[in-house]
């Protein structure tokens, strides 16, 4: 007979907790200027046509800032959602959700990077 408490006693930490916590903070701090940039970028291009958006993204600093934003934001998102899943999802669905979280954020990141490079270097 084992209680939930007895199951975890003596096992020590979850091993990757500190790194997870730290990267959540690193990406959070990076996100502060990046998120403000992204909001202004979106609102600035409300109603713009493709040519106007392309002209903006063709500027190296804009393209680099956009790429950094998506990398940092999506990384932060993956870490945050992992904690939410670990808190609320139990049983066999937990691993499904954890995997889905990884695939979802990486897929979005690659799509975003592709779009930024395509707009920046394309015609």
């Amino acid at each position, binding site marked *: *007979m*084992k*209680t*939930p*408490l007895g*199951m975890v006693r003596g096992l020590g930490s979850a091993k990757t907790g500190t790194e997870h916590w730290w990267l959540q*903070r690193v990406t*959070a*701090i990076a*996100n*502060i200027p990046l*998120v403000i940039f*992204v*909001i*202004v970028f*979106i*609102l*600035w291009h*409300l*109603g*713009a*046509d*493709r*040519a106007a*958006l*392309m002209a903006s993204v063709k500027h190296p600093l804009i393209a680099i800032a*956009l790429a950094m934003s*998506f990398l940092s*934001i*999506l990384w932060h*998102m993956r870490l*945050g*959602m992992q904690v*939410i899943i670990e808190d609320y999802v139990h049983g066999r669905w937990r691993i499904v959700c954890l995997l889905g979280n990884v695939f979802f954020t990486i897929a*979005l990141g690659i*799509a*975003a990077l*592709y*779009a*930024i490079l*395509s*707009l920046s270097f*394309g015609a």
Partner: protein
Amino acid sequence: MAETHTAKRPLSPHLQIYRPMLTMMMSIMHRITGSALYFGIILLVWWLTAAAISADYFAIMQAFFGHWFGKLVLFGFTWALLHHMLGGLRHLLWDTGHGFKLSTIEWLARLNLASSIILTLVLWLGVYWVRGTL
């Protein structure tokens, strides 16, 4: 492992036991806004990818964000983003070991909520002022 969970021991009381408080609501809002942003960013990536695909596809996305419903979604997105960011700043402050006085925590919660709304309005009005249109 099959014989686990046979002993029922008391656990700490859960959320529904407590009287709702502002600080508690702000904690929950941090998760809710985080989750909303998690899925909301799909629209943003979609928007950029549409531009990478063709001018016509991008025009469709722009028409969506030009519609009042699309603008409402975008307005909600900017508020959630700013609210989550300001909530995160509180957490960064707490990480340094400061700001744990009860009155400070209460004050920070109010400041967070108020400034997220004010900043969202300032940002949208600012863009409206610079561009002359929304």
